[in-house]
């Protein structure tokens, strides 16, 4: 069985004035199966949004191919094409981008169904049904976006996407603008909707603390290259790329006992992706970098089923034994804490 979404060796360059080139995406490949969540994580400027836009056919890739349901995506066949309408959806970081401030929430939710040619009565039924799934109070349907909290607005943004029962939703930083409590509620909602409708998600985010439990698989993007890809638990428990180790060690959990002890210190900050030198994208910051890393791009190596790492020295990372999975320990501690005294 072939994957629902198949991204092959995607490259996206943005030429700048003066002959320089932004190498936003440099040969990214991954697949997403039906009903599955793949998270694409990486820091600002790593190319996440650009990958998303290529997948949706909103911009043409410089090189490489994207297949959705066996057929190629691009300008001619994109998220807005009639043949694909409603089958792929997009959710933005700012709910304001999916919600028109002058249109009531209920109307906005039903809008994508109009393009599908659904009649008024069916639309209204689907809107009410979707509101129930979203945990949106019925009263909210008559409100304007500005009358709702940021969390409820993002719920409506997701509702507008899920209402067509799409096969794939691309979520670009859906929780980054929210308070932690609202963020958690959106994550729960995404999990519930997926269980219900079997929708696949491409979750684009830099918020690692929500990634682990929504994702089946996680791909770590650095300067336009996927440096590691693994099932979620594997990546969080035993990352093998020096960058993944550094990234995960930077995540803070609300427990003073779970200190950030990283066996690997990354130097400095992520450079800008203009005219990148050859070799491994991390070479300038990596404690393991040697001459080869600076000239040769490390290919992805399969270290276990579904676990790929692009690092010449991943065996050295493995030997460091940095296996304390703070996320799992936190899960245990917080379960104990939260098990007392609720209403």
């Amino acid at each position, binding site marked *: 069985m072939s994957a629902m979404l198949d991204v092959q060796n995607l490259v996206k360059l943005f030429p700048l004035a003066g002959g320089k080139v932004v190498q936003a995406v440099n040969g990214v490949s991954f697949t997403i199966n039906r009903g599955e969540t793949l998270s694409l994580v990486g820091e600002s400027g790593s190319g996440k949004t650009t990958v998303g836009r290529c997948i949706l056919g909103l911009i043409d890739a410089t090189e490489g191919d994207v297949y959705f349901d066996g057929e190629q995506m691009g300008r001619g066949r994109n998220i807005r094409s009639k043949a694909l309408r409603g089958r792929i959806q997009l959710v933005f970081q700012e709910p304001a981008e999916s919600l028109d401030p002058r249109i009531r929430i209920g109307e906005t939710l039903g809008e994508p169904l109009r393009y599908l040619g659904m009649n008024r009565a069916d639309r209204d039924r689907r809107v009410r049904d979707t509101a129930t799934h979203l945990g949106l109070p019925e009263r909210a349907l008559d409100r304007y976006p500005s009358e709702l909290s940021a969390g409820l607005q993002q719920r409506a943004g997701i509702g507008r996407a899920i209402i067509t029962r799409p096969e794939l939703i691309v979520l670009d930083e859906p929780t980054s603008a929210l308070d932690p409590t609202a963020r958690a509620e959106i994550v729960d909602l995404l999990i519930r909707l997926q269980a219900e409708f079997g929708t696949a998600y491409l979750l684009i985010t830099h918020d690692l603390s929500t990634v682990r439990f929504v994702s089946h698989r996680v791909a770590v993007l650095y300067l336009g290259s996927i440096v590691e890809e693994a099932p979620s638990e594997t990546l969080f428990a035993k990352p093998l790329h020096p960058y993944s180790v*550094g990234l995960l060690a*930077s995540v*803070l959990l609300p427990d003073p006992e779970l200190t950030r002890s990283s066996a690997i210190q990354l130097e400095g900050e992520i450079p800008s992706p203009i005219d990148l030198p050859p070799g491994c994208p991390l070479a300038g910051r990596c404690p393991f970098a040697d001459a080869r890393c600076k000239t040769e791009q490390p290919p992805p190596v399969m270290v276990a089923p579904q676990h790929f790492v692009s690092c010449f020295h991943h065996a050295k990372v493995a030997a460091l034994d940095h296996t304390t999975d703070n996320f799992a320990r936190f899960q245990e501690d917080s379960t104990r804490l939260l098990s007392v005294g609720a209403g």
Partner: protein
Amino acid sequence: MTGVPAAGSAILEVSDLWVGFPSYREQTLHALKGIDLRIEAGEMIGLVGESGSGKTTLARAIMGLVPPPGVIERGRVLFNGRDLSAQSDAARRSVLGRELTMVIPNPRAELNPVLSVGRQISNIAFYHLGVSRQEADRIALDMLRAVHIPDPERRFNAYPHELSGGMAQRVVIAIALVCSPRLVISDDATSGLDVTVQAQVLDLLQTMVREKGAATLFITRDIAITAHFCSRIAIIYAGEVVEIADRRRFFARPGHPYSIMLLAAFSHNPALRARWTRAEEIAGATPSTGCAFASRCVRRQTRCLNEAPSLRPLASGHAVRCHFPVEAQA
């Protein structure tokens, strides 16, 4: 002018502070409702609350700069024994930027775009410390080094737009700390940064305030940060401190249902999270008489709707504003 205070003396004393924003069309919005907060020399206290809970209003009130149309309705703020809101602008200016400084997010907007970053630090030193221009430049260069700006001699002459977000935030920290202030207020200062950069900047801020012996009021929406960088935690909800405790005590035995809801947001057990979260109601449902948190509280009972709880001690150094606090077995 001011000597080093004895251990345990308060740098900041906020007592029964009420701040309101009057409005023509609606009732006055009470952004702060009776805040009591004492910060001792050298401590780092985390103030955590959601958007709109009053954190920035408190920071501004401490600096004596409540934004119009806001007014201090009751209570007072003493910084180093003085009420800044009662001082002349000139007197206040000599305190702000030197003894009391602030670090905010979006450092590029904070910095002057047409002045080199070295010069901006140097100006502060020159203005507040009464040193020569040359000495101020030397101090500024030392500060760039101290905040780990790579190649500081060259970066001294760089303009803000030539720096990454993380580097610009380091410069802002350098500006805040160059005069060895007594209190630094950090208002959501790392929220726009990537996680790896945020971790570096937080480590730096912590090291720097320790070295300089400053106290810190660390304001954030992210309770996770405070677990690692603060000695005490205060939780603010709708303009009231609802819980305050030492860090270890707080994270081991949180007492207020709202604190636990904040912690639950990081749990990835949806069932447990649901136990601590009541479905959000659409604005305006809060009763004016009872507990401000009642509409979202999973432990509320009839009493909560009729009677506002006061901030009461649960243990030494640990106080909770709740009729039915959770007393965890830990």
